[in-house]
Each structure stands twice: as C-alpha cells, then as structure tokens.
C-alpha cells in the first residue's frame, strides 16, 4: 500500500527567495506528523504546498500514491481531498455550527449529513450546539468545530496550521491532548504545523524540524530531543548547554565532566576539539558525588529547580533537580552524568 503522503525533494519559491528547500519525507496512514520550526522557517509554506495553495518549483508531492504537485502542475486544493484547519479557524460567521460542519459534505442526503454532524459533535463533546453561531462559542469550542468541519468529508489528510496559537496558553496543552485523542479515534492522517515544541511532543507521532527552508531532522520526539541531527535542532528544541571536549584515541571524548562515548555529527580524529550537548536532565544531582559544581543561578519551576552550574573554566551547565533539594546560589553541589553517550558537534 502506498504511503498516505510522500513529499520528494520539494522546493517552494517566492520570487527569488527559496522558502522550502529540497524537503523529502513520508507519512504512513493514521500517523500524525508535525512540522516544527521557528517563524519564517518555511513550515507553513510547505503545508500550503501540500494543500495545493503553493506551486512547487522542484520535486513532487504524492497523496495516496497519486501525484498532486510537480513543477508546472498543481492540482487545485478543491480536488485534493485535504482538510485544513487554520490558525484563525475561519469559521463562517453567517452559518450555524451545523451548517459550517456540513459545508464540505456533498453528494449525500440531508439525513446522512445530519447524522455525520451529530457523530462528529459527539466526538468532540459539543453535542447540541448545531444551531449556535460561531460568535456564541468560546475559542476552544470554535477550534474543535473548525477541526470537525475539516474532518467531515473524511479527507485523505488533515492539515493543521498553528491551530492552537489563537488560544489561551492554559488551554493549549489540554486541547493538544484532546485533539490527538480525537484524531487517533478516527484514524486520521494529519500534519500539524507549529513553532511550539510542547505542542509537537503532545500531538505528533513523528516530528520534522525545519530551519531556513530545509528539513533538518525527521524523527520521533525523543530522538529530536536527545539525538539532534545538527546544532540548529539542538538549540531550537529544549534547553541545554554546550561544553568543550577533546576526542581521544579510540573515539571516546574527554571533557571537564569526565570521559564518555559520543554520537559524532562529523568526521573526526583523535585530538579534534568538539562541543558536547548536555540537556538539563543529563546531569543528576547526587550529594554522594565527588564532582562538585558551584550554583550561579536557580529558577523555581514547581516540581523542580533549574540550577545553572558553573565549571571552573566558566562554562555553564543546566541541571534539573527535584524541588525539595533547595540549595543556595554560591553553594557547591555534587553532580554526576546520567548519560555515557553524548552528542558531539564540531568545535
């Protein structure tokens, strides 16, 4: 069976500016993918190219094995069977909730339409709101209506363009979880575009990080966080520190924190200097440890403290510690490494 979505060497250009540069990935049926990246990285343009709103200057896009985009030919969005949810929801103010949801349903009887609307409203827990108008709903409710409107005609793929950014922060994470449950229950294949990594982790099975139009990594959330493909991904996703190290004979690395094995991102030889990525959860507070570091900053985060620790040469590290370990700034605390395998970038 062909993949639900295949993007091969796709490039999008506005005038002379290349905004999507040779991007390739595949998405299996029922999988939720995410395009993650800072604003201006090309993620929305890529999504719009998949929807058919932007033409490709290079490469091709296949939906369910059928070629829908190639240079010089872009199948119109209305012929692609893609569902789209926009940042502003774009609900039609002159139509009721029910009328909005059936907007894309065609060729089926009024009775089956009503049935589908009822079933979708149950799915999102908004039964009984058929006759309300969009302005009578809360932001979260509007978002779910926009979602089921796009799902109603059972599209090949559902595209979500920053669907949570119009909502209050407290609402976002809760809704991301709910939306994932809804999509999974209906077995929908979907792509989410976002700049928020927590949203991506909460919703997606697989995440693509985009930077300057290029797909840097297409991987699970865990790998993106712990095994970033390049410096850009390492810095964009999560917190962390880079500390200098030196490659030893045999491929291990020596640093101020001891020797460890590494996942190299480039050719190397003994004696090369490298930079090591250390996440706050890679360093564990341990009073027994002989390795003591000075606290130079601390931020209370509820369950944890995020300590900033300083090495003797001034390099700073982040360390996440359960919050009943309350130490003062200036104190020296014992730490040890929780990993023996770190990511090394060229120094």
């Amino acid at each position: 069976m062909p993949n639900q979505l295949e993007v091969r060497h796709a490039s999008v250009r506005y005038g002379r500016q290349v905004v999507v540069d040779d991007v390739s990935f595949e998405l299996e049926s029922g999988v939720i993918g995410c395009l993650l990246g800072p604003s201006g990285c090309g993620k929305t343009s890529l999504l719009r190219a998949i929807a058919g709103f932007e033409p490709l200057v290079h490469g091709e896009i296949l939906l369910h094995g059928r070629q829908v985009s190639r240079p010089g030919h872009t199948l119109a969005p209305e012929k692609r069977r893609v569902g789209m949810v926009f940042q502003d929801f774009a609900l039609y103010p002159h139509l009721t909730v029910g009328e909005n949801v059936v907007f894309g349903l065609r060729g089926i009887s009024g009775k089956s339409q009503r049935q589908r609307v009822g079933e979708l409203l149950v799915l999102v827990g908004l039964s009984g709101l058929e006759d309300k108008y969009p302005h009578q709903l809360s932001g979260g409710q509007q978002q779910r209506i926009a979602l089921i409107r796009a799902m109603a005609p059972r599209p090949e793929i559902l595209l979500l363009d920053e669907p949570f950014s119009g909502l209050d922060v407290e609402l976002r994470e809760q809704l991301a979880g709910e939306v994932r449950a809804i999509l999974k229950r209906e077995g929908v294949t979907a792509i989410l575009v976002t700049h928020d990594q927590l949203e991506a982790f909460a919703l997606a099975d697989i995440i693509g990080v985009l930077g300057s139009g290029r797909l840097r990594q297409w991987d699970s959330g865990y790998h993106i966080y712990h095994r970033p493909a390049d410096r850009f991904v390492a810095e964009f996703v999560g917190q962390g520190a880079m500390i200098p190290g030196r490659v030893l004979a045999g491929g291990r690395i020596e640093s101020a924190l001891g020797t460890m094995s590494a996942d190299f991102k480039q050719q190397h030889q003994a004696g090369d200097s490298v930079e090591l990525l250390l996440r706050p959860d890679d360093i564990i507070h341990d009073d027994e440890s002989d390795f003591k570091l000075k606290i130079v900053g601390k931020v209370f985060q509820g369950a944890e403290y995020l300590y900033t620790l300083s090495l003797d040469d001034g390099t700073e590290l982040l360390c996440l510690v359960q919050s009943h370990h309350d130490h003062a700034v200036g104190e020296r605390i014992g730490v040890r490494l929780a990993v023996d395998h770190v990511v090394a970038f060229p120094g």
Partner: protein
Amino acid sequence: MRPTASRFPWPHLSIRLNGWSVTVLSLALLLAVPVIVVLSYLFEPAGEVWRHLADTVLRDYVINSLLLMVGVAIGVLLLGVSTAWLTSMCQFPGRSVFEWALLLPMAIPAYIIAYTYTGLFDFAGPVQTMIREWTGWGYGDYWFPEIRSIEGAALMLALVLYPYVYLLSRAAFLGQSICVLDVSRTLGNGPWRTFFSVALPLARPAIVAGLSLALMETLADYGTVQYFGVSTFTTGIFRTWYGLNNAAAAAQLSAMLLLVVFALIILEKISRKQARYHHTSQRHQALTRFELNARQSVMAFLICSGALFFGFILPAGQLLWWALTTAEENLDSRFLNLITHTIVLAGTASLLALMLALLLGYGKRQQKSWSTLFAVRLAGMGYAIPGTVIAIGVMIPFAAFDNALDSWAREQFGWSTGLLLSGTLIALVFAYLVRFLAVSLQTVEAGLGKIRPTMDEVARSLGTGSGEIVRRVHIPMLKGSLLTALLLVFVDVLKELPATLILRPFNYNTLAVRAYELASDERLADASYAALTIVAVGILPVILLSRTITRSRHAKSA
C-alpha cells in the same frame, strides 16, 4: 511572506491577472480625470479674466472662505466636543437617547437648514413678527441679528456639521482606557482638571480629524453661502463659469480651492494616524461614568438638547409645518415627477458606484500590488473634493470631447453629432461617481475585509469551486455591506446640490435642485416638500450609524 496572487479564487483567470490590474488602474485614472483637469489649470498662464478676478473679488473669496472656516471650526468644536464628552463620560437623564439623537442634524443638508432658519428668523418670519406684536415696535426700532450673513452661514454649517466632531471625539473618549482617567483622579484631579489635562489632549488627533472633515464640507458648500449672499470660492466659481463664461478662470479658482482641500486631507490623514497612537486601551472596559449632580445634570441636558433642538428638531419641525400647510398646492404630478427623476438618478449612480467598488475592492483583495493599491486610493479621493470643482472638471473635458467629435463628424460626414456627453445624464452620473465612489468603496472594502483569505482557502480545501465560494460565502457575508453602500451613495446623491446644478440636462430637476430654486425665489414654504423628503431619506443612514453605535456599546458592556 506569502504572495497574495496565489490566493486568487479563480485560478483559470490568474493568467489574466495583469489584465485585471490594468482594468482597475484605468478605471481609477478615468475617475481622476476631473481632478487632473482642474489641477492642470494651475500651470495655465493667467488669462485676462483671471487678472480681473485677482484685482477685484479674489481677496473677498479668500477672506470670506477663511472667516467661514474659522466660524465653523469654533462652532463644531464647541458643540461636538462638549456633547461627546457629556454623552460618553457622564451620567445624566436622557444620555442614552442623546447618544444617537445627536447625530440627527447630519440628515439635514446645510442649504436646507439655511433657508429654514431664514424663514424663521428674518424680518417677516414668525419670531420677529411675534417680537413686534408683543412690544409694538416697528421696522428699525430694534436690533435683531441678521441671519443672512457670514456669521449666520457659519452657524448654519456648524449646526449640521458638528456630528463629525461628535462622532470621532466620542470614539476617542470611549477608546481611552478608563485607567488613564482613573490615574488622573487618584492623583487628585477633579473631573474638570481630568478633562482638560488628560482626556482632551489624548482625544486631540481624533478631534482634529473630525474638524477637518467638517471643514472640507464647509469648503464644498454652495447652497448656504449662495443663499446668504456670502462670496466664497464656490460661489465665485459659479459666477465665473456662468456670469463671465470663462472656463479657464473658473478652473483656476477651482484649482486654488482644491489646494486648500488637499491641505485638509493631509491634516486629516496625519491626525488619524496619530489618533491610533493615542488610543490607550486595547481592551474596552465598561465605563463608569461620572455621576452628575442635579445642577450639572440640568446643564448637561441643556447643552445636548440645545444642539439637538437647533440642529434638527427646530428646522425639521418648521419644514413639517410648511409641508402640512401647503400640501394641497404641492403634492401634485410635478412633485411625483421630481421624485421619479431623483430616484432614477440616485439609483443609477448608487448601483454603478457599487459595481465599481466591487471591481476595485476585489482587485485590491486579489492582488495587493502597488498599482491596485494606488488605483483604489486614487478612486476614493473624490469624496473630499467640492461638487463644484468636480463639475468644472467634468464639464471641460466632456465639452472638449463633444466639440472635437462634432467638428470631426461635420468634416467627414457633413452632419452634427451635437452634445453626446456634456449636458446629458452621463456627465452628471459620472460626476456623482467621482464624488461618491469613496463612500461605497469604503463600505465594500470593510465588508470584504471580514472575508478573511483563510475562509476562501477552507472552502477550497473542502472541495468548493470558485463560483460556489462566491455564492455560498461571499454573497451572504457581503449582503449587508452591499445594501449599506447602495443606501449611503443614494442619500449622498439625493443631497448633492452644486454638481447637479451645473451638470444636469436642461430642465431636468431633482429634489435638491427644486428645493434650492424655490428657496432662492423666496418661496420657502413651497420648497419644504422637496426639502422634507431629502431630510426624511437622509435619516436612514443616520439610523444605520446610530445602530452601529448602540451595537458596539452592547458588545462592550457584554
């Protein structure tokens, strides 16, 4: 950064996109012809007539126009700002009624209030007659202010133009965060100090914007100053055109007037821009208004009811009285004829304006290139330009075209084509379009703005084709705006006087022209029917406006 061209809902047309923008641009240029023609006379060498004008009457035109502007400015500021402050920030009996009723004077064209007041207050009018009956005085025994004077004209204009200042400064007061005012009061300033030291300076840009709109209308006025015998630019243009039969000199006067108008437009634009920075609150809070005590309440009530009474109730009442007493002589087939003429004319102009506005609005929506943006700006420029100036700018090129065509036809075929454009309804409707397109354009653009591009895109992703999007999304969402645009232009055409006077076909009368003619012949009571009809229809947009105000207030309190 996304190119807007890709949002074009009709992909099969996108190849002709250039054709589209060329159409939009050439339409806008066509509409700009009158202004360009008039401005081109700035570079024409001054003729003998112009030198004669400059030696004799030009000084009067300039001085009178300036005096009139100063008078109107004082009037509209006093009336507009005080009523806006009272109705938006203070609580007193009747406030919520005044809030919308204070807009009613907008329904009365200045020339109509002018001759109504003349009928009321001149020597033979009911007020002076009553004074003489009570006191036994005769002619010359007492002093009574002369209504037909420059002060009178300023008063008339101020009475019907203050709503511009009222509207904009009211919006500014309401937009001020209640916090800035509260801060001032916690710092020990009373309501009065707060008003003068915080609220007024913050609202200044909005007030100036409203003032410049009122002054543009003042400069455009012909009916009032002509009736009161005050020589200003507009009456001067008429006199030069008809009396001296000199098109060039009339166009040169028009060009001078135009420069003043441009200065006002710039002032208004700058003020509006500043007004945005002076808007201190992002979120509207329910205002807690100053509770006025009994004495203050009476004062507030008197100020607001005074503006309303003299600006609307008194003149409208007088018109109604005249109309009732002369119903028999005036409600005849001629009046019906007049109404038909007016409806046909205003209906044609408003429909055409709507079609053009849709064309320009969609052009701008589909392709936000500099050329379409410029075109839309250009096409919307006419609203600030006095009808007299537009009429001159239409007449000169149309007549030149007719003459050229006529002499060519005579040479070629030996027969005369006569006047094809000038002196026909085509010229008149064209002038209306130039002047009032901005009104429908603004409304249509506001309506189109509500249809966000994502709404088109959602429809397309749901399998909806272009025609279906227009039918199922655009038309239902635009309906209200389209009707409003039609109504606003219809009413504006109905009230328009000077352009109609100059451009109408021989003996083709409209309500406005007839009211003006009868009033000029001192047949004030007979003019009341036409005038009252204009005022009655003119109330419709005021109702629309006041409904928006009430709705926004409810939205805020919700």
